[in-house]
């Protein structure tokens, strides 16, 4: 992480960066109820298949206008980290800073919420560019947050249209909708049917992260992952050494809500394994290396005054 990056603690008077930088969007303008019907036929856009997807709009520093990657045959030639139901984008943004050598995409079905995250990432990219050192700029590498993006999408319906077999290294499910009623259990984001698809888009060795403050939902997710033949539980030791865990627990608005309410957070973390009958199984991959500490990854440049005025929550935005 660059020491010159414009980090302003929440409550700070002003941004150190140029005054023309975009203020972070005001969350109150993007409030939306927490539930969305994933079965409804929303007017969503999706490619016919992942080979036809043009990612330029989402990662302009990494994909040319014709959709070809700027850095082919590298780890940033396609999306590797997916935050399903990214909400206000806390994890998406902090993961992108923790792992600058990976592209992190948040998917969110609620239009206002995904618009908010879009605005936020646009603002953060401006801050990231302004904070880059001359050496960094001379090297021609994309600046901070260019590797984070958000898309309004229904992953339950369209996940496999966006991502090919074995493309993803990590999938996150942070505080998903519990869908308490039995009749709505099919709407839960972890189910045997969807786990088949998650196994398909995950590379062998890829990790599924789930966290919830709702014990019954946690048990549901944990038991379904446990029962699925293509997932194995990640060891406690490995979890402790995974820098992403800190962000899973602390980066999202939902995580902060749970903290405020004194709730507990339950983790279920599983690895995608190779099925012995799998045809042409993909080889294991080299895991991404964190570029900073998770605590540093959580710090984002805030144009503080606007952010505090904007937030109608008791706590200032600090994702």
């Amino acid at each position, binding site marked *: 992480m660059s020491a010159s990056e414009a980090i302003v603690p929440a409550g700070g008077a002003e941004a150190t960066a140029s005054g023309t930088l975009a203020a972070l969007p005001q969350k109150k303008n993007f409030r*939306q*109820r927490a*539930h*969305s*019907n*994933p*079965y*409804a*036929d*929303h*007017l969503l*856009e*999706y*490619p*016919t*298949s992942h080979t036809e997807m043009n990612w330029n*709009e989402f990662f302009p520093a990494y994909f040319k206008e014709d959709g070809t990657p700027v850095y082919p045959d590298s780890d940033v030639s396609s999306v590797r980290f997916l935050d399903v139901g990214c909400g206000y984008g806390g994890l998406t943004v902090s993961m992108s800073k923790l792992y600058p050598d990976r592209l992190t995409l948040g998917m969110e*079905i*609620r*239009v*206002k919420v995904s618009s908010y995250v879009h605005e936020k990432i646009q603002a953060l990219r401006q801050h990231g560019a302004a904070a880059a050192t001359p050496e960094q700029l001379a090297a021609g590498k994309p600046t901070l947050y260019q590797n984070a993006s958000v898309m*309004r999408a229904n992953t*339950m*319906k369209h996940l*496999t*249209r966006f991502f090919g*077999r074995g493309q993803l290294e990590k999938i996150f499910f942070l505080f998903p909708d519990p869908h308490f009623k039995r009749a709505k259990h*099919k709407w839960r984001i972890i*189910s*045997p*049917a969807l*786990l*088949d*698809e998650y*196994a*398909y888009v995950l590379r062998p060795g890829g990790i599924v992260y789930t966290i919830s403050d709702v014990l019954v939902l946690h048990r549901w997710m944990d038991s379904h992952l446990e029962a*699925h*033949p*293509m997932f194995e539980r990640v060891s406690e030791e490995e979890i402790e050494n995974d820098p992403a865990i800190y962000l899973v627990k602390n980066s999202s608005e939902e995580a902060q809500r749970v903290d405020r309410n004194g709730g507990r957070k339950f983790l279920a973390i599983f690895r995608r394994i190779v*099925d012995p*009958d*799998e*045809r042409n199984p993909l080889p294991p991959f080299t895991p991404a290396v964190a570029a900073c500490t998770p605590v540093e990854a959580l710090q984002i440049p805030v144009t503080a005054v606007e952010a505090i005025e904007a937030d109608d929550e008791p706590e200032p935005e600090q994702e």
Partner: protein
Amino acid sequence: MSDSAFRQPFSFILDARDNIVLIFGNDFQIVNKASATITHSTRAVEGAHHIEGGHTTPIVAAALSPGQGHFVTSSNDRIVTIWDTATWTVKSSRPVNKRITSIKFNKDEDTFIVADKFGDLLSININNTETLTPLLSHLTIVTDFAFARDGSEIVSADRDEKIRISRFPKCHLIDGFCFGHDSYVTRLQMMAGAGPDASDILLSGGGDGLLIAWNLLTGSLVQRVSITDMIEQRFAAGQDAEKQDVDIMAIVATSDQKHVAVAVEDYPGIFVFNFDASAAEPLSFSQTLRVSADHRPTALAIDAEGRLFVGWSNGTQLLSAFDLVNGKFEQSSADIVTTINNSSSVRVVTVPSMLQYLQLRSGAQKTRVLGREAVRGDTDLMDEDAEQPDAKRVKTDE
């Protein structure tokens, strides 16, 4: 015979070697090909054995086991019945939770698989019908499924335009997807590939009027035929300004895989294609079969000899047969056709609508917008605060 003016059309025709099985409404009949007589019927027919224990609501799916020893039917009231074909008696019967959309046997005589309206595929053993074994699930209605690669794969299609290729019986292992339909997928038909190393070719039809050939190994699209366009060009040029996608309702192939017949909902003709798995474009249009503009197809079947049976509604004939003569289908005047047209089915006061896919079309995703600007910023259309799928809203964008 009653005074009622119409006869119930056939909803399914199944080839059973020496016999054909005709399904109409709640009922079915067995017709022997050689003698051209109705031998068994759930309805009283002179000279035919009466089949006891039939359904009391319309039959919505049916299948014969590979050895033809078992026949399985399911009705609208979610009853699944297994019949012993030696005696045409009920072997067992059980209710299921969701309406069945399709029944298929793989290679096992004693196990059949059902797809239901909830999107689940379940396996049922004939000798232990108590247990339903879940195989895989889709998020929406599974409309049809098929077995591929010598029964080691199962291909399932749903209302969300999706075709999933899974290992069988290890169905949690997904081998791929076939993406290319713009609407719900209605029918699947497997074709063996050319040569030992060639991939099987899957044919699929949809509510977008498309007949698509897929390489099943890669999931890639091999050929796309728009039946909607064919209807426009060949039969309705200039007459109908508003183009409307048709629903493909049946795809059948001859056992030598050289000919494919396709029926479209509410259109009075059968499209016949020649099929060559080794060609770059395996499907080439051959001919259209029609009786009259009143004859709308309701069911298709091809038997081992290559005779194509077509069930009709509305018209004077309930059934036509077409025989292959020098590579083309010609209408047959076989005795069995006469028998069926004279004696089969039942008279009804009104002909029931055979349009199966209306419920899929309602609220279905008929729109795929690849240009993002068209939707972005249109918050009214995108406001998903409405919890219910809103068919009207979707239609505005068609």
